[in-house]
């Protein structure tokens, strides 16, 4: 099993000791190994429903110049396509609302909740 977010594979703290993990920068600051986005999301419980609870009208997106959703979405679900549209995947969505809030194109994002019992389940929220 992978250990997403671990600082240093050789100095895990599972034994309760206080290991000195991480790389040290010239200023002495400990730097953390970045983890991939897939690893980051791997620990989140998503009970994916059959219905897409958010839909994106890619035609509207083509005229958008800001594309705030692409970087702001914490689940990284909005991908720009080569033809200027937006590709969207609802499956690993936190249901936070960031996308429709930062969207400045009326009607581009249709936002609802997933069907009852589906979607993200936070166990340590």
């Amino acid at each position: 099993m992978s250990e997403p977010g671990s600082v240093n594979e050789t100095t895990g703290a599972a034994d309760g000791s206080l290991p000195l993990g991480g790389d040290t920068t010239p200023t002495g600051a400990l730097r953390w190994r970045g983890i991939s986005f897939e690893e980051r999301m791997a620990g989140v419980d998503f009970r994916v429903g059959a219905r897409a609870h958010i839909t994106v009208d890619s035609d509207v997106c083509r005229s958008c110049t800001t594309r705030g959703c692409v970087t702001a979405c914490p689940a990284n679900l909005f991908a720009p396509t080569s033809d200027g549209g937006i590709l969207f995947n609802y499956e690993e969505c936190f249901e936070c609302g960031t996308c429709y809030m930062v969207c400045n194109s009326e009607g581009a994002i249709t936002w609802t909740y997933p069907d009852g019992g589906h979607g993200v389940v936070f166990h340590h929220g």
Partner: protein
Amino acid sequence: MTEPSAFDAVVVGAGPAGSAAALALARAGRSVVMVERGPFAGSKNVYGGVVYGRVLDDIIPTWWNEVPVERWVVRRSTMMMTEDQSLAIDYRSHAWGVAPYNGMTTVRSHFDSWLAGQATEAGAQLVTSTVATGLVRDSAGRVIGIRTDRDGAELRAPVVIACDGVNSLLAKEAGLLPRAEASHYTLGVKEVLDLPAEAINERFGVRGHEGVDIEILGCTRGIPGGGFLYTNAETVSVGVVVSLPHLAEAKVRPEELIADLKAHPSIAPYLRGSHLREYAAHLVPEGGYDTMPTLAADGMMVAGDAAAMTLAAGLWLEGVNFAIGSGYAAGRAADRAIAVGDCSARGLASYRADLENQFVLADHKRLRKAPALVLSERVQQRYPGLLCDLAEGMFTVTNPTPKAGGLRVTRAAAAKHGVKLRELAVDTIRGMRIFG
């Protein structure tokens, strides 16, 4: 399938506001159903630091003996940082570690389920995995129930209490919050990291059930917001909360801000060797008093995050207690309205009056100008660095050069960060007016 008007009240959402509302109604002998879209109470909820339980004293006596607590916060630190400096006001209290306590860290799936359990024990009904898809109105436009996604089944009652969270689709549908402004909301992102209890105790200087909450300014690359780090029993939670429009404008991914914070020399030593257990994101309604929706309509009230009740006033960052306070008040107002047979907006007006007379709206009203000051450019981008340089100027020993006086160090720090002394004075007075 259509449910008859079998209930006195329908509560949407089994978060702290909804459960408190249902508890108040059930205790008054009213039939009440809570509709929760997640598989269990708290499953959609995230918070960022501390739950202050004083609000529960009158509702659940000696609640601290049964609440699912992770740690009782005995150390609360407010930290200002730059890339490689930090300055903290670190307060520690023995009293906060013994009953009746002050604040706790908890896990929302546990805490919210516990509070929902209080409501169901009192007689409320909890229906999970069910979305309220819309309002049911009579011919006069009064709210008389909700539609659900259970084969379109309706739940009817003389009063609906919308505790459906920060995105409250019901408040929008009812016209109570015609349009949500992005600038009134922040995005919180949080990592929960596994760390053995012994490591937490050693690093944070605590033991047993003692916990620490660190709130941080200056760690968000100039994007208005802040960061936090707090201890749970065997995990620590670290994250940032940032203004939505500024985040979008900055084109920075939210998890990068957490990575920055975790790498900071003042934070990294706390987290060595920890592993990511869960990543989470949630919106926070931070606009305060002036951005709240209308709280009641004919047959309907709004409470908790749905009513923008989170208090984000810099020194004070509270939400769950405001949700409980507003939800409980809504439940009691519903009971009074049902008793006199008037669930119109006028009949439900005692809800707002009650909130004005207690901490919920009294605090919000008094601190209504705080969110703007806390998120202002100088407080966010200049003062953390200014204060860190001030500390560095005062505490760096410069022998054989004689010590510079406090005023000279202040002038130098202010000049370096582009702040005029007049602006510093203006903001100090502004802060004293808001917080004093």
